[in-house]
């Protein structure tokens, strides 16, 4: 035991006297977004349920679509070296591959966006942070989906 004076909880004074005492206790660290009796009661609607179901169903479909896509693009017929403008133009000449790529685009984008939405809900503490992050997310998602859809439907193999 050293001779320095220690307080009841074993925390010695570091520099000068402690800032806190019985009448002036340190602030308690509040947990983020605490539930209180003022927390709004249940909101009607099944959005979260449909979101949860969509993640499961799109996930199953995406396993087939994405693994098939990777197999065709990277493994079969000489691997990645074959991929070029001509290869893409050839595939998109068939409605089957157009539909395949369209489904993959929509499902992957919505699946990823919904996943990020839940991540933002889990981690962003302030309402304004949530609003901005989600705004950014939705803008990027809509832009990518629309651009991708436009390209798949208006693709011109004879472009110069």
């Amino acid at each position: 035991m050293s001779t320095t004076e220690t307080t009841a909880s074993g925390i010695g004074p570091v520099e000068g006297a402690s800032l806190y005492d019985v009448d002036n206790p340190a602030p308690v660290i509040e947990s983020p977004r605490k539930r209180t009796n003022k927390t709004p009661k249940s909101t009607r609607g099944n959005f979260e349920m449909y979101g949860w179901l969509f993640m499961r169903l799109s996930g199953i479909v995406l396993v087939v679509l994405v693994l098939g896509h990777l197999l065709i693009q990277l493994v079969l017929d000489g691997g990645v070296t074959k991929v070029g403008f001509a290869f893409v133009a050839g595939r998109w000449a068939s409605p089957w591959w157009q539909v395949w790529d369209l489904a993959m685009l929509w499902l992957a984008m919505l699946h990823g966006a919904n996943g990020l939405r839940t991540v933002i809900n889990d981690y962003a503490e302030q309402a304004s942070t949530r609003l901005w992050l989600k705004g950014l997310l939705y803008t990027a998602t809509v832009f990518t989906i629309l651009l991708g859809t436009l390209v798949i439907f208006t693709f011109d193999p004879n472009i110069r």
Partner: protein
Amino acid sequence: MATPVLDKAEAEAQAASPYITVTFRVRRFNPEVSAEATWEDFQLEIDPKERVLDGLHKIKWDMDGSLTFRRSCAHGICGSDAMRINGKNRLACKTLIKDINPEKPITIEPIKGLSVLKDLVVDMEPFFQAYRDVMPFLITKDTNEPTRERLQSAEDRERFDDTTKCILCAACTSSCPVFWNDGQYFGPAAIVNAHRFIFDSRDDAGEQRLEILNDKDGVWRCRTTFNCTDACPRGIEVTKAIQEVKRALITRRF
């Protein structure tokens, strides 16, 4: 000339002594002294077959009376002394020292996700608010006082038997990573207690409770990490109960 005999007796007593030296590394916070929480080590002689709670009692009664923690029954029923022992949520009164490697310092912290008030005591109010919000009491269509017992078959009772075991210690809710980051989430304990009434054949407000848990902060925020099932000192299959509520919500709609 009795010295050798005494020595021998003493040596035997030493060999037979069940006591070992254990280090308790306790997370201390006292807002009346400092805004910082710090670790404090306590060395104690204790029988490894005793519980962590006995060690905390030894510290509080014989070494440092300022150590603050909750405990009431000390036998795993009241649910007061849930704490984070060696990084896992457990009841101090149900954890034997020999089971958690007493060779290394045993770390003891308050449960996470709730405000620490002092040492191991946290503010349980948000936890009980979520509990109250799921209406954890019997609601019947018939508002008249019953004239006889509400009978139930053994099968109907079995349906929700697991979730009747909850002692509201908050070990599950404070082990949930979603709850750590967002206290608006109902948390596993509230859902378990809703499950207890949703699947009770005598209760008529299951629909209402399902609607409450269909909320954006309800069951759909569960990420099935199974932390709650691992943490439950009563062995309730918490994640399974949450999944059953999800399934009830989906089958109700389709």
